[in-house]
């Protein structure tokens, strides 16, 4: 089991463009550039020191003030026991696109569909990227902050 | 002459006194038909009631207990509800086959029931190929299920129907062969002869080892024939909804429902007749006094007690066992029951040849 500093050192040696933060969070947060998301994912899973094989939570966040969407993946290593959060911000808010992680952690297959459904982030390389919960004809992505639905969503 | 025989003879005389012989014959046929229809309905309702009460007993609850004394009228009320309901089917169904299917089942079970002697001389017609006739007629029922599944234009129904086809054709063999084992002992296919042969000992005691094996096989394959748990793959409610009768409602559904229970009755009645002596009272060797007391209980009562016992056994299975899978079902029949059955026939033939029976 590695502490946050050791994970940070290993990752920094691998890729020096990563941003790290432990502020206001229980885990080590690592931001990665969209184009390096997939390769870092592979590294996290396969590196014998890290072995983050268990992705237990994946979600999206909308940051309208920064004009970006973000995905947040909580990772744990089952054999080693350490944890971290992998985060990636999309370039734009209107046409968000990221590489899929579903070939690295198959569990994200469903999570990415959910994120696509509720945030509209498209995942390149995903084999079955369809809306998961909502009807295919649904307009908009509900968890975005500027989503308006006067019929179904009552705002007090 | 037994009481039941006297009764039928009296009715016969009475009709002859009233009509010409030809008309009396027709009147007899009509009366028998009506009697069987009435019996059919009453037995069906009674069995449904029984099933529900016994299920409740196994499941630590009460079962129907509000309508009528002990809830006896509950099934009548349910039947009335079903009759009053509008039949709703699918639009794309093959309407001719869809409407035809329930009658196949109900008629085949009605015909099958007619050869079973419920007392001395108490069967609609006592033909010399009775056992054969019963097996032949009861296998017509599977056509009804297949047609129902095909005609309702529903994938679940179709799966259920095809399962049923595979199941019925396979288990038909075991039913037939296990009955054949006992026929070897009797030497006649006529049901009244089969019962008559058991006036000293029931066949299950007479044929001892092979007879007991045949009895067990018959109960297993009979349960499968009547599509009941653990062989209820045809309906398999957790897998197929309601299987072949998913798309039926109202009176058509009631027909399927009723015929299932009547089939159970037939299987039990045949088991009781062929293995447990039918309407013959229980006799122990030379215990004259005991045998005499037993003789006082009329034949039909014996018949229904024995049938009821087998029915209870089948209900017990239903509320205890999980369901088999389709390949396990086939495996059980073709790999275990059928070879065992064939060996058992040889064994029985050998015993009969050597005279090693009671």
């Amino acid at each position, binding site marked *: 089991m590695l502490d946050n500093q050791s994970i940070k050192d290993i990752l920094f040696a691998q890729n020096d463009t990563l941003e790290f933060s432990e502020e206001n969070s229980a885990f080590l947060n690592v931001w990665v550039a969209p184009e390096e998301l997939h390769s870092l994912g592979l590294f996290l899973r396969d590196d014998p020191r890290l072995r983050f094989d268990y992705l237990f939570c994946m979600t999206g966040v909308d940051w309208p003030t920064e004009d970006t969407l973000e995905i947040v993946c909580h990772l744990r290593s089952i054999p080693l026991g350490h944890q971290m959060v992998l985060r990636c911000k999309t370039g734009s808010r209107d046409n968000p696109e990221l590489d899929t992680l579903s070939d690295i952690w198959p569990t994200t297959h*469903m999570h990415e569909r959910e994120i696509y459904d509720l945030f509209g982030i498209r995942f390149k390389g995903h084999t079955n990227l369809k809306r998961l919960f909502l009807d295919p004809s649904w307009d908009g992505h509900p968890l975005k902050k500027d989503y308006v639905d006067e019929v179904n969503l009552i705002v007090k | 002459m037994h009481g039941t025989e006297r009764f039928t003879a009296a009715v016969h005389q009475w009709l002859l006194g009233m009509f010409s012989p030809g008309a009396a014959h027709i009147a007899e046929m009509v009366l028998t038909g009506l009697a069987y229809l009435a019996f059919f309905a009453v037995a069906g309702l009674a069995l449904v009631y029984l099933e529900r009460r016994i299920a409740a007993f196994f499941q630590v609850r009460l079962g129907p207990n509000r309508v009528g004394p002990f809830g006896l009228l509950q099934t009548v009320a349910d039947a009335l509800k079903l009759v009053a309901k509008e039949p709703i089917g699918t639009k794309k169904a093959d309407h001719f086959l869809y409407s035809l299917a329930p009658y196949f089942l109900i008629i085949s079970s009605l015909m099958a029931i007619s050869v079973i002697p419920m007392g001395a001389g108490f069967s609609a017609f006592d033909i010399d190929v009775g056992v054969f006739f019963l097996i032949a007629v009861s296998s017509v029922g599977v056509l009804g299920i297949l047609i129902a599944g095909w005609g309702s234009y529903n994938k679940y129904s179709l799966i259920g129907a095809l399962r049923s086809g595979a199941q019925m054709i396979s288990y038909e063999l075991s039913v037939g062969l296990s009955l054949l084992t006992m026929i070897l002992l009797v030497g006649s296919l006529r049901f009244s002869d089969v019962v008559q042969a058991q006036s000293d000992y029931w066949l299950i005691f007479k044929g001892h080892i092979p007879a007991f094996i045949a009895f067990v096989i018959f109960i297993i394959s009979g349960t499968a024939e009547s599509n009941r748990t653990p062989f209820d793959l045809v309906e398999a409610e957790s897998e197929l909804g309601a299987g072949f009768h998913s798309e039926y409602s109202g009176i058509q559904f009631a027909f399927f429902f009723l015929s299932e229970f009547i089939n159970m009755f037939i299987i039990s009645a045949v088991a009781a007749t062929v293995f447990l002596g039918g309407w013959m009272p229980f006799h122990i060797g030379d215990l004259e006094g005991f045998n005499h007391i037993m003789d006082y209980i009329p034949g039909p009562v014996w018949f229904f007690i024995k049938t009821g016992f087998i029915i209870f056994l089948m209900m017990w299975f239903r509320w205890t066992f999980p369901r088999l*899978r389709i390949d396990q079902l086939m495996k059980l029949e073709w790999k275990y029951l059928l070879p065992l059955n064939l060996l058992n026939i040889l064994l029985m033939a050998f015993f009969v040849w050597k005279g090693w029976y009671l």
Partner: protein
Amino acid sequence: MRTGTLFDPIEQDLHTDEYKINMGPQHPATHGVLRLILTIDGEVIKNVEPDLGYIHRSIEKICERDNYRQIVHLTDRMDYLSSHINNEAVCLLIENALEIEVSDRVKVIRTILDELTRISSHLLWWGVMGMDVGALTTFMYGFREREMINDIFENTCGARLTMNYNVPGGLMWDIYSGFVRDTKAFLKHFKPKLKEYNDLLTDNIIFRKRTEGIGVLSKESAIAYGVTGPTMRGSGVSCDIRKLFPYSAYDRVEFEEIFMQGGDTFDRYLVRMKEMEQSIHIIEQLIDNIPEGETLEKTRAVIKLPKGEFYQRVETARGELGVYVISDGKKSPYRMKFRSPGFSNLSVINEIAVGHKIGDFVAIISTLDLVIPDIDR
């Protein structure tokens, strides 16, 4: 003249087709409004595609509107069979974020109720599991015992299913005077029943044949698909949050984390059966010495979490429930995510069901123990 190629004339004229059937949204085996689109060749399953959203209420969006006290009430509509544990997850998160230390009394009572919830949930699962493989009686047996737990819940907080007994800072009110007596009576009644269950279903030859070697979930795919809870432990992976990241009073009780190595339907079944024994064991350790103390710490009327991110996990009857909150310091969360156990457990279905028959498929989804509102949220 015939050429040398092999072909079957029957196969040419009467070729077989794969076809699709809808299992659900109204189907007895899916236990709710889950729709599974099965591609089938005869009886054999070729592909499974879940179609979700029939009970999607967008709880996460509602959370962004409501305040923290209200959010607690939404959580027991997710996995309604472990509502108490769901409530606890949010309450623990708020308490940790605000650094409120609840008394030992609260911790112990929460833990006892957690385990009662777990038993009750497993009992329902057991009953339904039996029903799915065709043994209808198990359902009634399971419910008979479950009723006693529900009575305890009802006496404790007024509700039998969606309990809402946990509030941020402790419990809604103290336990009722007969709580200890009733819980002990339940344990006394329940212990011999587990043997009865094993006699009725576990040791039944048909049941064994129906479950052993069916739907094998390997250790590797269990991890890769993020499976949790008893489903994961059936494959031999340690993932019990109660052991790994203890919360409430789990750090002061002795219990075993149940593992099976095979990963088939029967192993998943056994894990849950043995977990009930462990739950009894946990309750027995706590029930006699519930410490005295405050049951509700003082909190502000409107709870505001500090700026930051919080993650709290608990072990529900189905596995790890994670609550992830991004707070911007206001009275509602900026973003709230529930990582529900059913969601990831469902995603593995295609992996383990393909190649099995419809009858097996029903048994497999039964041992995944899905609660649909938990998946859809």
